[in-house]
């Protein structure tokens, strides 16, 4: 009747996900994986969120991160922004619904969206510093990160942060180390109201559908799922009561996509640039082959001697110096 007080954590601590499951690897290519993991997703139901910050707390504890104790600046958001230690953050918005004049306290858990088309990975110059697993997890590999900050420019959601301590980029890993042993992210496990749930993406979409139905029945006509196509969909999705205007949720982008500037930089510039340099070098070689070197003739030397014969202020040439020509 009394269960074993201290059952050891035996099996299931062996990580069953790894490089063999990469489908993308920054600044490098990966072979087609032999197996395809089922797409997973974290669903954040903003309408169920009570803004308790258990997710932030669990994240700090699981990842052994400690943020510095800050100050109050007149809001509930603490810390005030994502940092290399704060991988997820509750953002609070006091919004008055002009349709009925009611105050709504919109509370959104901010953090990496794990895009299917990750801008950070596209921008990253360091091979293997950012990887994408076949289940959708986009992860930073600390060992390979060079701290250039290109991922910051690449991200459509302003998520990655570069540590001033070790000059490496940090963001939510979706608890890849837990997923690898069949557990969900620490935030999802902790969430008291299950506003954060985790499972396969299909399950999460089905679950979201139920939630949206419930919300519509409670008068939220525009309730919907946030799974932005601009980045190929995300593996962190939101259920929003006002899906028609995501920006009211602390600036959640309406139609996020990788910036065209980044696309240009990482696309055409990269290749055109190399080509241009190649052409320049090649032109030189060709020109040399055709016209040969531009040599000084004996006549030129004689002309020079004639011209400078009575030049004023000329100095005598040291006879011991070996001749130039």
């Amino acid at each position, binding site marked *: *009747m*009394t*269960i074993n*007080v*201290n059952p050891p954590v035996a099996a299931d601590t062996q990580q069953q996900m790894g490089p063999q499951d990469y489908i993308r690897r920054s600044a490098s290519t990966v072979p087609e994986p032999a197996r395809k993991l089922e797409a997973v997703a974290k669903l954040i139901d903003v*309408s*169920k*969120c*009570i*803004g*308790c*910050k*258990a997710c*932030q*707390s669990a994240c*700090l*504890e699981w990842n052994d991160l*400690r*943020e*510095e*104790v*800050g*100050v*109050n*600046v*007149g*809001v*509930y958001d*603490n*810390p005030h922004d994502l940092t290399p230690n704060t991988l997820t953050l509750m953002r609070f918005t*006091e919004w*008055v619904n002009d349709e009925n004049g009611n*105050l*709504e*306290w919109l*509370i959104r858990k901010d953090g990496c969206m794990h895009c299917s088309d990750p801008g950070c990975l596209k921008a990253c110059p360091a091979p293997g510093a950012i990887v994408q697993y076949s289940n959708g997890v986009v992860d930073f590999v600390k060992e390979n990160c060079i701290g250039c900050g290109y991922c910051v420019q690449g991200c459509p959601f302003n998520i990655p942060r570069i540590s001033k301590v070790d000059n490496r980029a940090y963001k939510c890993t979706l608890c890849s180390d837990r997923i690898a042993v069949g557990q969900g992210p620490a935030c999802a496990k902790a969430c*008291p*109201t*299950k*506003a954060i749930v985790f499972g396969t993406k299909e399950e999460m979409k089905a679950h979201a559908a*139920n*939630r949206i139905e*419930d919300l519509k*029945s*409670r008068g939220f006509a525009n309730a919907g799922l946030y799974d932005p196509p601009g980045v190929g969909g995300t593996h962190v999705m939101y259920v929003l009561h006002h899906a028609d205007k995501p920006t009211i949720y602390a600036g959640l982008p309406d139609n996020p996509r990788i910036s065209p500037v980044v696309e240009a930089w990482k696309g055409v510039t990269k290749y055109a640039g190399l080509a241009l340099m190649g052409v320049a070098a090649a032109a030189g070689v060709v020109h040399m082959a055709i016209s040969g070197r531009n040599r000084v003739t004996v006549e030129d030397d004689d002309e020079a001697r004639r011209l400078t014969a009575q030049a004023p202020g000329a100095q005598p040439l040291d006879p011991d110096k070996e001749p130039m020509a």
Partner: protein
Amino acid sequence: MTNSWTDIRNTDLVVIMGGNAAEAHPCGFKWVTEAKANRGAKLIVVDPRFTRSAAVADYYAPIRQGSDIAFLLGVIKYCIDNDKVQWDYVKAFTNAAYIVKDGFAYSDGLFTGYDAEKREYDRSTWDYEIGDDGYVLTDETLQNPRCVWNLLKEHIAQYTPEMVERICGTPKEKFLKVAEMISECSARDKTMTSMYALGWTQHSKGSQNIRSMAMLQLILGNIGVRGGGMNALRGHSNIQGLTDVGLMSNLIPGYLNIPTEREVDYATYISSRGFKPLRPNQMSYWQNYSKFFVSFQKAMWGSAATPENDFAYHYLPKLDLPAYDILRAFEMMDQGQMHGYFCQGFNPLLSFPDRGKITRSLAKLKYLVVIDPLETETSRFWENHGTFNDVDSASIQTEVYQLPSTCFAEDEGALVNSGRWLQWHWAAQNPPGEAKHDTWVMAQLFNRLKKLYQEEGGKFAEPILNLHWPYADPEDPKPDEIARELNGYTVTELRDPNDPTKVLVEAGKQVSGFGVLRDDGSTACGCWIYSGCFTEAGNMMARRDNADPDATGAYSNWTFSWPANRRILYNRASADLDGKAWDPSRKLIEWNGEKWEGYDVPDIAVTAKPREVGPFIMNPEGQSRLFTRGMMRDGPFPAHYEPFESPVVNVVAPAIRGNPVARVFESDRETFGDADEFPYAATSYRLTEHFHYWTKHVWVNAVLQPEFFVEISEELAAEKGIDKGGWCRVWNKRGSVHAKAVVTKRIQPLVCDGKPVHIVGIPLHWGFTGAAKNGMGPNSLTPFVGDANIETPEFKAFLVNIERSDGPASA
């Protein structure tokens, strides 16, 4: 809680009023979101602030703190006026039909028998008419003008929606919307649950706040049913347990009472208890009082408690006052009448009202002993911390002992949750440094005191010398040894009363439940309501079978729930007079012809016939009370009283300040402020990121909510030129604090009796020890006033003034 956390999933309507479950009890609030998501339940939040509970509510209505009774009586009036009453329930299970004595009346805010000198009522008229048969007179037709129902209607007549708006500042249409939603739950197949906490208790009329909602729940037929009930969300992990085990000045474990001086001997004491039924056939369970009491005495003093010495009745202290509660204790300290004080895991310097008085009082002690796993402000009250604790150490003569105790991770034992579940836990790590278990500390203190009395003798040493101490290692009693005492055991063998040759239970066995306890000294039991928690079958509190047949949320085999592993109190009331469930989809127990069966342990005898025995077995009526007779010091019906410090006068009884029988000490009156000097209505509360004064020691929580602040409306901020995130000063006659300002739309000015009322919200989590930024707290400002019945301090409603500031000198 009459029900359990997991039972909330069965409700149709959740009313959070006088609490903030989403912030203070997030994981319990989970069951509200489950009810919403899975059965379309609705959530109503009524609160002065738009809280995180309100953030996920279906409907929010603002209310001025301290006006809840007017609001709730208004809802009761709405239900009665609109015939939204669960009539079968009210007629069968309440005292609506009882005839009340002539002479009882209410006028100008006072009930009959008030003595302004003593600030007390003579409650003799607050009772029923008793017939010649010794039973109370009733009128089942509810026609008699003196029956409880008609007196109630008369009493609440003045609480119209307009009056509610005048008093509470709740716009009429919002009040009506809430009343309408609530009234729907009078249907047999709709239940509402009330989730409340210190938002109702911490008032000078806290008990009556709760009574008002309890009466409403009875009228709607929501007590004893799945998804219903009165659910007090207790603050601390084992405050339920500490109250059950009677760690209060006037209690004996299991809600028995410490005798008073007037009870000169055991016979007198017991005669005034063990109530005989007021209706035929009722169980009136307190008739067994003597069995529980004697068994307790045997657990305390073992062989020294004998029939000859009235089971050591005189070893118990006798009270000359209703209670030596915390407020009185500090009043005595301040008067120099108390010289020693122990704080076992408690931080009064921040927890008790009027910090100035607390500091002053502690400084008058000869010795103070603090037993705690953490640094506490109390243990360092003598240490100067600038504006955060401005004292002169040299002038404080108190000797202070700071003893390191273990925390949950290092000890073993049971905690009782709000749902009355006794849950056993095990130690995960060894204590740090020289920290010791509280049990070890208490045993060490006791053994030393006993030794001193053995060697030196002294005043009345018997209770100490004879204290029953049956532990394998007297220096270090083990949790399971003590748990066995709490459950109870047979001292001698128990024989069948009808056939003395038959032995029912051997001597020295764990009893199976309080049913077998006796008042002849043959059984011992530390806490009768816990009986059954540690039987011959083993430690029931350690059971971990989380099966839940038909998803009722009962979890009957998970740990142990007092009493008798019952999960929902008064569960007999979940079925109609004939024993059929009010709502078949929410069956709890039903009468099958011979006995009661279902998902829970029946509250009444399993073979007690319906229509004979009422559900409310602890009441001599067998029924619940809409009219409480003389059982509450401030009236058999709730009435609206303003807080002692209120921004408006009491519009129903202008002459009365506060609750006429609330606990007030004359010496504190001069520290009360008035609205002309301190115009703003302040309230104190917890934040979800913190737990009282513990989590400021926890780095992560200090990060999540680092610094002391107050919350004010944009309107008040503009009026006072206070910036969002800027400093402001909040003060009254008792103290002054500097805080960051959170200027928010979530607090709106209210209009009460035609006058705008601004609210100032003051969270309570900061001090001068720990990882978080140093800060002050509301108890520098709160008044030294207590509830009329249980002396809970009035932390939720008081007056302050506020201005822009440059922050504390040392900040």
